């Protein structure tokens, strides 16, 4: 397959070159070939660069000694001026030359090399990401330390959070249960972890009020973690006797089968309050509309942006994106966790200033801030 491809390509190239030749173009279109190790990569690759003009094809040839047999490994357009040769062995000397098929003959360029590929220790094009990561870590650690030392950090009230206590209270008054749905992704998803920490707060309340709570699960890992979380909350609230294993159940792994089971549960058991907090996909509205139709108070929270419109229209309160994470820190009322919200606010401000500055500088014709933010 590969060889036949090469044959076809070569034929095409010869024809193309013949055409170019007949139009009177001559001379070697690419000069000053350089071969260097590809920077910032895992090795096995060498970058070739040359000065070239025109749209002619040049063949790229490689050998392991300067006088050895050169084999064609690929082609490029002369004016592109670069080519990356991959799948090489590290610590081996390679020599390159360009060839230009002109009519019957093939013109050969000068030999470049030796070059060795090697595996590198840093992706230099990710410096900006490194700065951002370091900044985030440093700010979180420093604010958390400040908070530990007793410094008061102001975080505004997040609407929807006071609604959590109200909603638990209402279920207690009505003598009905609370349904807590921790989303449908596994523990690898950070929203699920945020949801579990909100679940801990909610189940502490239900333990104190003696309200019934049920947590149906889609993911088996979340199921076992949620059971531990609820158990822990009942212990901390001083009501370990009230905790029942049936409070946290496993349903099924399929998104829509899960939605079917949960909606059926809603209709049959008529919970007074539904929490839909975590990661949701298409089932969001199936759950939220059914909950709405049975008249339950619904509190939703997700960072899955496509589902936000549905929660906003069908639930009483919705924690939007970042609010979900902030809520889980806020509810614990631990100053340490509040410190990390502060840190994310500072980074947010830095981003806004950077972007703002970038816009102004761009208006004066410089692309520098955009270049600094460029990454891959």
């Amino acid at each position, binding site marked *: 397959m590969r060889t036949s491809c090469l044959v076809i390509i070569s034929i095409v190239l010869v024809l193309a070159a013949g055409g170019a030749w007949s139009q009177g173009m001559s001379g070697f279109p690419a000069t000053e070939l350089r071969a260097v190790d590809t920077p910032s990569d895992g090795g096995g690759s060498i970058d070739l660069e040359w000065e070239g003009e025109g749209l002619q094809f040049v063949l790229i040839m490689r050998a392991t000694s300067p006088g050895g047999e050169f084999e064609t490994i690929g082609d490029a357009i002369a004016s592109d001026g670069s080519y990356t040769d991959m799948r090489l062995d590290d610590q081996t000397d390679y020599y390159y030359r360009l060839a230009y098929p002109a009519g019957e003959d093939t013109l050969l360029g000068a030999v470049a090399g030796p070059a060795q590929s090697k595996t590198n220790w840093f992706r230099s094009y990710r410096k900006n990401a490194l700065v951002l*990561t370091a900044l985030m870590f440093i700010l979180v650690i420093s604010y958390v330390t400040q908070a530990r030392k007793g410094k008061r950090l102001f975080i505004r009230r997040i609407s929807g959070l006071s609604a959590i206590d109200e909603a638990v209270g209402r279920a207690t008054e009505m003598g009905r249960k609370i349904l807590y749905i921790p989303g449908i992704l596994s523990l690898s998803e*950070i929203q699920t972890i945020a949801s579990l920490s909100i679940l801990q707060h909610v189940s502490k309340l239900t333990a104190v009020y003696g309200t019934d709570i049920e947590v149906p699960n889609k993911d088996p890992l979340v199921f076992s973690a949620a059971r531990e979380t609820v158990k822990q909350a009942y212990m901390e609230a001083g009501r370990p006797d009230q905790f029942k294993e049936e409070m946290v159940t496993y349903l099924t792994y*399929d998104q829509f089968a899960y939605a079917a089971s949960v909606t059926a549960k809603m209709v049959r058991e008529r919970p007074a309050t539904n929490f839909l907090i975590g990661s949701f996909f298409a089932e969001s509205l199936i759950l939220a509309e059914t909950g709405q139709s049975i008249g339950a108070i619904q509190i939703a929270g997700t960072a899955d942006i496509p589902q936000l*419109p549905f929660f906003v229209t069908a639930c009483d309160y919705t924690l939007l994106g970042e609010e979900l994470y902030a809520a889980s820190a806020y509810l614990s009322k631990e100053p340490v966790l509040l410190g990390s919200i502060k840190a994310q606010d500072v980074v947010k401000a830095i981003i806004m200033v950077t972007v703002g500055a970038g816009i102004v500088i761009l208006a004066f014709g410089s692309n520098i801030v955009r270049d600094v933010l460029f990454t891959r």
Partner: protein
Amino acid sequence: MAPFGIPIGVWINAFLTICILSFLYKDNPFFRFAESLFAGMSLGYYIGIVTENTLKPNLFRPMINDFWGNHNFLLVIPMILGVMLYFRYIRKIAWLARIALAVYIGYYVGVYLMQKLHGDILFQARDTIVPLTMGGIEAVWNVVIIVGVFSVLVYFYFSAEHKGALGRVSRVGIWFLMISFGASFGYTIMARISLLMGRFSFLVNTWVRPMISG
């Protein structure tokens, strides 16, 4: 088996479709049947594909075929971690289950952290730096984008009470959010209807029509 010349699979398919649709009227035994069957079969399905596509090719086969070659013996590590998850049910060593969980969560938290900081923040921030000097209507639209991004970010600013100027900007942010939610909602409606039409088209064209036309 093909009653009325229609394959039995189509009958089952149609029956289950109607069972689920009947839930719209109210909860009933047919829906409950379909729902229970769905829960059971979908879980069974997942057991099947995890065994066939993950456990067999990535764990069992390499270990059985060539235990010492190709570093396959290292596969013992995930196996032990997997088994550790069950220690939760043995009181004395229950805490060991946390080790498996810690490795699992820790790894993904790290992976996703870089993805958020790199893939989301850098790309999106860079793209918000838009030119304003080209004149014409495009410049105005770019102002709209800048105002939108900034006001939404201000709405998510937790360190200060949203009063005064900050309150007004965050109010603009709410407007942008609502327009976006509305637009998403409107964008979706027709696609949702088309899903339903997919089901109806099956019922009408694959099930009922051949029955009538014989």
